[in-house]
């Protein structure tokens, strides 16, 4: 297993812990390291205190953890708010100010507490100095990063501020870097190579743009707003448009309008917003209008826990539309994969003329990570997008693939009316049983005949035990497999990127010969497990479920333990 180093930085609101964490991660990235940063918010969404939680490692399996090797407290003011997410133990080291009482829980944890004269050191470095920059210097020292490089990053970030501000930052970093510390950590090795630094939400937006998205309708919602905010800026460069809608009902319908006009259209939301969109997603299915919706999952049900991660929206994504409404559901497997999966979704939606839902979650979406340049899936076989139609133009012509030629307003002489009422091939409303059956078959056929290709998911490992998972739970499942294999137990891991249409044949093949199958997911009601059983039954064996709600991260050790134990039959 690769070495990791988990670092938490905390302090009051305005103390700049996030800036400190982000600069450290950027410096680490430039030096060839790997790792990621999560922000822990207090119990609220709006501005205010947060903690920066970094995890540096040697590979890109990015798993959230509460177990911290190192905690840097700029002050102890807001610490109590984050105790849930910062677990300390005897192996942990705490760097903190020497003029404030260390919280009892920290003292009780057995962590090594190193009190530093932070106030004096910062004041000594520069009259306008700030603790967060001094901490950055300290941390750079511990990680073996070049202080000048960190200072350059910090001053670049402060480009808009007064020169004294920048000088102070550089001086504090320098002071921290040179501070005599009786602490030693062993930082992970830095593999080097080309890497990007971005969040899953940025990756998703990037993937959407690269796949051709030029119209975005937006209604803010945590934790999806930053996808939209990224797109607002980036769309200007590609000549696209973003409309801020009055609500999610408008957002999805604006996107439908743009898609009807021929634009690759996109919106992003989270559970409550997705719930508002389902009626119109059904319209997208029935009218065969392509559209991509990214759903960044948060704790549910209802308003739930907006700032924290969970995978509870699989059910609604799969089944939240009324009537028989076949559509695409995909899930991003990791932070970088948000780009690939979103780009594939846009391409598939266009190819099948149906809505594609992409699931990611607060963890993937809002974690800032150092990743290999993300893949994209933008090119489709030219034949995949039907544009010609034999003879008389029939918008909903019954074809072998189910896909019919899509005319766009402006196309000469192919005028038609798209309709959410059941219709004939021409698009004329019809209540006839035969038209209904034919169009239901056609719409289902589009998905049924889709060869899922190589991207439906990943399969690795061998043996009679298997973990099956989807989306962001993949990292925990893979880590569990690594543990099992290290302990001598062979095991397979199947991570699903395509959830609807479920690649049942590929999945059966991937699980052939398994004696036990454990479905891993981060929700309460085993939504993926139910989905798999519904389609596969007990093939090859009755699947077992490892479903745990958020916001606590999935625990690879618990997953491994469950698969290693023989099940109790009852």
């Amino acid at each position: 297993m690769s070495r990791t180093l988990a670092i938490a930085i905390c302090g009051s609101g305005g103390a700049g812990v996030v800036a400190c964490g982000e600069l450290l991660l950027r410096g680490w990235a430039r030096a060839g390291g790997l790792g990621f940063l999560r922000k822990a918010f207090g119990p609220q969404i709006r501005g205010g205190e947060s903690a920066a939680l970094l995890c540096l490692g040697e590979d890109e399996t990015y798993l959230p953890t509460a177990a911290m090797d190192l905690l840097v407290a700029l002050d102890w003011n807001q610490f109590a708010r984050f105790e849930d997410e910062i677990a300390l133990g005897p192996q942990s080291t705490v760097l903190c100010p020497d003029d404030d009482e260390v919280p009892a829980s920290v003292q009780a944890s057995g962590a090594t507490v190193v009190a530093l004269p932070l106030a004096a050191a910062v004041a000594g470095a520069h009259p306008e100095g700030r603790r967060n920059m001094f901490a950055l210097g300290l941390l750079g020292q511990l990680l073996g990063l070049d202080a000048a490089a960190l200072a350059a990053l910090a001053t670049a970030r402060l480009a808009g501020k007064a020169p004294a501000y920048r000088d102070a930052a550089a001086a504090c970093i320098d002071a921290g870097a040179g501070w005599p510390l009786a602490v030693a950590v062993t930082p992970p090795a830095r593999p080097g190579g080309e890497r990007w630094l971005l969040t899953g939400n940025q990756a998703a937006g990037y993937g959407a743009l690269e796949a051709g998205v030029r119209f975005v309708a937006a209604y803010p919602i945590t934790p999806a707003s930053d996808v939209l905010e990224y797109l607002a800026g980036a769309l200007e460069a590609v000549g696209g448009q973003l409309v801020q809608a009055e609500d999610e009902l408008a957002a999805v319908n604006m996107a439908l309008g743009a898609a009807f006009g021929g634009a690759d259209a996109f919106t992003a939301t989270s559970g409550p917003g997705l719930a508002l969109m389902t009626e119109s997603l059904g319209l997208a299915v029935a009218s065969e209008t392509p559209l991509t919706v990214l759903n960044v999952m948060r704790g549910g049900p209802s308003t739930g826990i907006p700032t924290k991660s969970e995978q509870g929206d699989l059910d609604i994504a799969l089944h939240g539309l009324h009537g028989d409404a076949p559509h695409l559901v995909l899930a991003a497997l990791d932070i970088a994969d948000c780009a690939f999966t979103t780009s594939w979704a846009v391409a598939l939606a266009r190819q099948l003329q149906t809505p594609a839902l992409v699931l990611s979650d607060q963890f993937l979406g809002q974690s800032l990570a150092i990743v290999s340049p993300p893949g994209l899936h933008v090119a489709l076989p030219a034949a995949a997008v039907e544009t010609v139609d034999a003879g008389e133009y029939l918008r909903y012509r019954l074809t072998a693939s189910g896909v019919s030629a899509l005319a766009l307003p402006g196309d000469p002489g192919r005028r038609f009316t798209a309709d959410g009422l059941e219709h004939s091939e021409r698009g004329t409303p019809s209540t006839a049983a035969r038209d209904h059956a034919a169009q239901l078959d056609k719409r289902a056929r589009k998905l049924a005949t889709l060869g899922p290709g190589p991207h439906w998911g990943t399969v690795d490992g061998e043996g009679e035990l298997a973990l099956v998972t989807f989306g962001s739970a993949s990292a925990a499942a893979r880590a569990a497999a690594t543990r099992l294999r290290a302990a001598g137990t062979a095991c397979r891991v199947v991570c699903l990127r395509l959830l609807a249409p479920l690649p049942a044949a590929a999945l059966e093949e991937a699980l052939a010969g398994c004696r036990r199958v454990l479905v891993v997911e981060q929700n309460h009601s085993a939504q993926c497990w139910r989905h798999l059983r519904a389609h596969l039954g007990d093939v090859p064996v009755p699947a077992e479920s490892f479903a745990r709600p958020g916001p606590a991260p999935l625990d690879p050790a618990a997953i491994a333990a469950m698969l290693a134990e023989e099940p109790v039959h009852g």
Partner: protein
Amino acid sequence: MAEAALRPKDYKSGLKPIWCPGCGHYAVLNGLVKALAALGLDRDRVALVSGIGCSSRLPAYVDSYGFHGVHGRGLAVAQGLAVARPDLAVIALGGDGDGFSIGGNHFIHACRRNVDITYIAMDNEVYGMTKGQASPTTPMDWDHSKLTPHGPGIRPFKPAALALAAGAPWIARGYSGNPNQLAKLLAAALEHRGFSFLHVLSQCITYCPEQTDWKAIVSEREDEPVTRADAAAQLFLAEDGFATGLLYAEPRTPWPPAAPAAVVDPRLAEAFRP
């Protein structure tokens, strides 16, 4: 862009409307194809967008591109389409239930947003399609629906007043009983750059036969349209709602500004280099 010499009937699709004989919506259809012909608009570049209701069935009866969406959301679809395709003439339409009840939020926000579309509200003060329930414009004491057997009991909306307060820059009122004026107002609405709101009194012969009396009440306004919002506001809250014509028009630049030209190589990846 215009096709050569199309007559109004060339803009009809030929599909037989499902409307009851005597329904006011026929007049809107006829007025619309007349207006399209008068302006010589290219049928391939006209897009009609609607929600659900008897009125919302109209797009299929016009030989243009059309989008028959879900109940109340036509205006949102139309705005998305117009933003993505500024080359099209985008017309949103629907009933009073569709536009002022379930679609009320999109209505007020469309007024405010001022995207270049035309919105035709075919107002018969009733939900025709679902067999005659009260809508937001139904008189307080209209007791013909089993759902509100003593009448809705609440004051009807004044659509023009609402549109104005929400920011609409162009407001007209037509009447299904005056098809020539209707055609002219439709043409004017289509020519207006920005959001134009055409409120049409369009009677439902089946559920509100009493609306035949409108004939006697409706008047044609001869004055120039009001051009100040505050004056128009006063007018719309004081009037009886039966004066037809172009009521209010104030010049205002539509939104959005033209899309920025695409940068040749947007170098999106640059933003992510550490």
